């Protein structure tokens, strides 16, 4: 397929442009919760995301050219495509990715919410008779968690991470850590693509600038004038 042929030079250039990440592909520890966060920092994941994003951007540009779509145009469409590809890259293992896919594509088709991997908190927690049964659904051992300041911030955090509005405290923290790692990868990948599209040569302000300018200067061939 032409897409695989075309995506090869992209990945090759992306690899040369991006500086080596400090964390290698091997997970630094064997704890389960950290493995999927390590995955977001790997080069392979970023390249997978970049190539999928470029394919999605093709659809965005083509649809913007050919028709006047009811879908949002310009930056909003790019943002939604980027979020959708990010959610796909998450392989549906996290709540925020499932929420993004459900919300964005619910006009076209509904994605069934998968059964939750984390066992949901039983509703019997509410019947413990605690005075704060609505907010602190789990046992509160330290004052830290029951502070109203902490509760407020957790609620705000739950609103920021998609799909986590009504989740309990540890779920929100878990989803937030994965979401932050995924967002960082998204920023890195989109920065690299932006540099690629805007020429890449000369001084660049982002982190991949040094390698990109050096590679472009080393591989610079005189333009064919004959």
């Amino acid at each position, binding site marked *: 397929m032409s*897409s695989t042929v*075309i995506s090869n*030079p*992209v990945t090759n250039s992306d690899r040369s442009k991006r500086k080596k990440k400090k964390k290698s592909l091997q997970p630094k520890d064997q704890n389960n*919760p*950290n493995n999927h966060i390590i995955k977001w920092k790997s080069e392979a994941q970023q390249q997978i995301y970049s190539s999928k994003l*470029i394919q999605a*951007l*093709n659809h*965005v*540009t083509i649809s*913007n050219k050919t028709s006047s779509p009811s879908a949002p*145009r*310009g*930056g*909003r469409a*790019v*943002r939604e495509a980027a*979020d959708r590809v990010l959610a796909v890259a998450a392989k549906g293992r996290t709540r925020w990715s499932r929420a993004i896919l459900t919300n964005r594509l619910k006009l076209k088709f509904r994605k069934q919410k998968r059964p939750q991997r984390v*066992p949901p908190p*039983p509703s019997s*927690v509410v019947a*413990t008779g*605690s*005075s704060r049964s609505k907010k*602190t659904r*789990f*046992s*509160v*051992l*330290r004052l*830290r968690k029951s*502070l109203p300041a*902490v509760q407020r*911030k957790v609620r*705000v*955090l739950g609103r*920021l991470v998609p799909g986590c509005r009504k989740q309990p*405290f540890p779920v929100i*923290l*878990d989803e*937030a*850590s994965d979401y*932050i790692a995924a*967002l960082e990868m*998204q*920023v890195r990948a*989109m*920065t690299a*693509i*932006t540099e*690629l*599209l*805007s*020429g*890449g*040569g000369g001084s660049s302000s982002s982190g991949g600038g040094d390698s990109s300018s050096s590679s472009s200067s080393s*591989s*610079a061939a005189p*333009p064919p004038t004959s």
Partner: protein
Amino acid sequence: MSSRRSRSRQSGTSRITDDQINDLVSKLQQLLPELRNSRSDKVSAAKVLQETCSYIRNLHREVDGLSERLSELLATTDTAQAAIIRNLLMQ
């Protein structure tokens, strides 16, 4: 304390220990660029959460800005792949 009472009544499936909360908060703290260097006992959970919220908002803003730039760059080309190949060949 009422917390201890409710703890003894709960079943074991959903009990979240304090260690788990600490682990999650410290894991979150490791992800934040500002708080990565400070020691965990000096950083309260409220501050970690506050930094998390602002960091996520910053990342959202960055992604929005990058999306705008990308849409402007793509507005003049037919496909993203063609634009990338063109730029690669021109270097």
